[in-house]
């Protein structure tokens, strides 16, 4: 969805001021994703600020600064979005192929599952951390079978070691 690949498109009449320069329109690049995210966030902030009462003693009140920031963010995001649309596409950088996307999404998914287990305290922190470490390292490293016992040992050591050290010595109430 948000790779660097540019899609060649005919020059829009809207941008005819720059005629003569072959333009490529990047459909949804990382810039656009970031800008859209910022616009949505600013819209949510503006929507929430409706409930803030007007100031009594304070000249500007609680809503003025966040409201101004939200409008500024919308303006700058639109700038990034529009300049991304009219910019000439750069060649793909070679980073972020399908395999990398898959790896990133899988690791993000494993991490989310880890967070869910921690939130609901379904397993002891040491166990769930050891499992997380084993799953992630094995997935990323794709090690030969003979290395797997070593990874298992390391994951168990770090998982239970952290649990012990941080609950017993630093008194952090881990789940």
């Amino acid at each position: 969805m948000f790779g660097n690949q540019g899609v060649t498109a005919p020059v829009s009449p809207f941008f005819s001021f720059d005629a003569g320069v072959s333009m490529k329109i990047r459909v949804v690049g990382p810039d656009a994703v970031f800008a859209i995210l910022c616009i949505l966030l600013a819209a949510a902030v503006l929507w929430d600020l409706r409930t803030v009462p007007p100031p009594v003693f304070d000249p500007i009140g609680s809503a003025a600064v966040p409201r101004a920031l939200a409008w500024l963010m919308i303006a700058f995001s639109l700038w990034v979005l529009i300049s991304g649309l009219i910019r000439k596409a750069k060649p793909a950088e070679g980073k972020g192929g399908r395999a990398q996307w898959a790896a990133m999404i899988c690791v993000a998914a494993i991490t989310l599952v880890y967070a869910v287990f921690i939130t609901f305290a379904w397993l002891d922190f040491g166990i769930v951390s050891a499992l997380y470490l084993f799953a992630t390292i094995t997935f990323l490293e794709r090690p030969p079978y003979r290395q797997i016992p070593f990874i298992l040992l390391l994951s168990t050591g770090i998982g239970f070691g952290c649990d012990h050290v941080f609950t017993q010595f630093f008194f952090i109430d881990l789940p």
Partner: protein
Amino acid sequence: MTPLIDSFVSLLAPLPFFFVALGTFLGISMGAIPGLSGSMLITLLLPLTYFMDTTHAIVLLIGIYTGTISGGLISATLLKIPGTPAAVMTTFDGFPMAQAGNPGRALGLGIGASFVGGLVAWIALATLSQPISDLATRFSPFDYFALIVMALVLISSISQGSMVKGLLSAILGTLFAIPGVDPSAGIPRVTFGWVSLNAGFNVLPVLIGLFAVGQMLTDIFEGERKGTVLRVNSGAMLMRLSDWRRQMVNLLRSSVIGTWIGILPGIGANIGSIVAYAVARNMSKKPERFGKGSEEGIVASEAANNATVSGALIPLVAIGIPGSVIDALLISALMIHSIQPGPLLFKQNSELVWAMISAALLSNILMFFMMSALVAPLSRLMRLPKNWLMPCIVVFAVIGAFAVNNRAFDVWVVLGFGFLGFIMNRAKVPLGPFIIGFILAPLAESKLRSGLMTTAGDWTPLVTEPLPLTLLLVSISLLFWPAVSGWRRRHSGRVSKE
């Protein structure tokens, strides 16, 4: 002078000395591993500093700061991958010199230059901080507000990539500091009715998410960069007397440039080394050697990037404005220990401030000896597979998030900001302005509102008082300078074509 000497002597006691040495060693080790930054290490260690004495915690973090900027030299020279962004310019000459069979000499020049850079900047830190702090105690709320605006515009305009993205990043960071109960009015705002947000986003999970988890996702996405690590022996590492004599002017000039750039709010060591490198090349008798193993190039880059460390501490201790991203993390550390950064820091916590200044000197000295003696074993760290390290970093991040309030909400904040950090890295949006905006926003808003309360809602002091007017004019010039210089470039190009 006496408090400085007293605090330096007190740092030589076993426990504080241990923490400075530990921080410096950890920083050098982290800096030597490409992709793992000092910011990441500090954010992961911040929760643990809860349990430490304030002075020990801060001197540990200053040790890490010095170490991490210096450690980047090792991988830049032996692997051609800068361990930290600050060492980018060192790769241009350090690696060719190492490849030509002189890795020890390249590292020795870098270590010596780092030491001198740190020392020159430390002299500025020790002499300028208190006068600036005294001056800053006379600042009005509008002065402070204008200063923070200038800091945000400055970091946004100098950050890598486009200025609009830098500004967007600063505004985004500022906006994320807003949720919670407004301290002036006691009204919840931008909480969406969510009770967990009434206290706002705690700074630690935000930092851990952006720097640790965000970087991990980015690294997985971009794949591991592997290279051949050149071998080095620790022998013949020290700079010779003739080297010192030959490089003295370059060393001092680059150190002063690094110190000055460090003082400017929000600008990190990488800009310092780039400027010093460019100046050294322009002033060199052998500019053609630059990029092919020039001694002057290594010296300029390393002296400047280490000088930015103490240089950047000056605005932090004097006025509570971070000189770099790591300084923003140090401000968080101070706040964790219920210490309010700002011009009153010198008056209210003078012992701590002098300890910070002394720690900058001690860590610089320790860095020199550690790097000179331990480069060979430290270079082996570069072979550590990041695929093994990154999941461990996530586990530490989760523990760090839990340490804040013992609630799972902060774990989700870490993951949310980790994902945001990944998107920002992909879109090449700098994280520095975000962090500085996030940390300075509450201060900026409270200063603006208290200023307006004292003037009954009158905004004119912002443009009639000399200091805020000057600072705002500087901010406006910084905003419009890229457009003006671009227009001038295009105009001069057109004239030359005609």
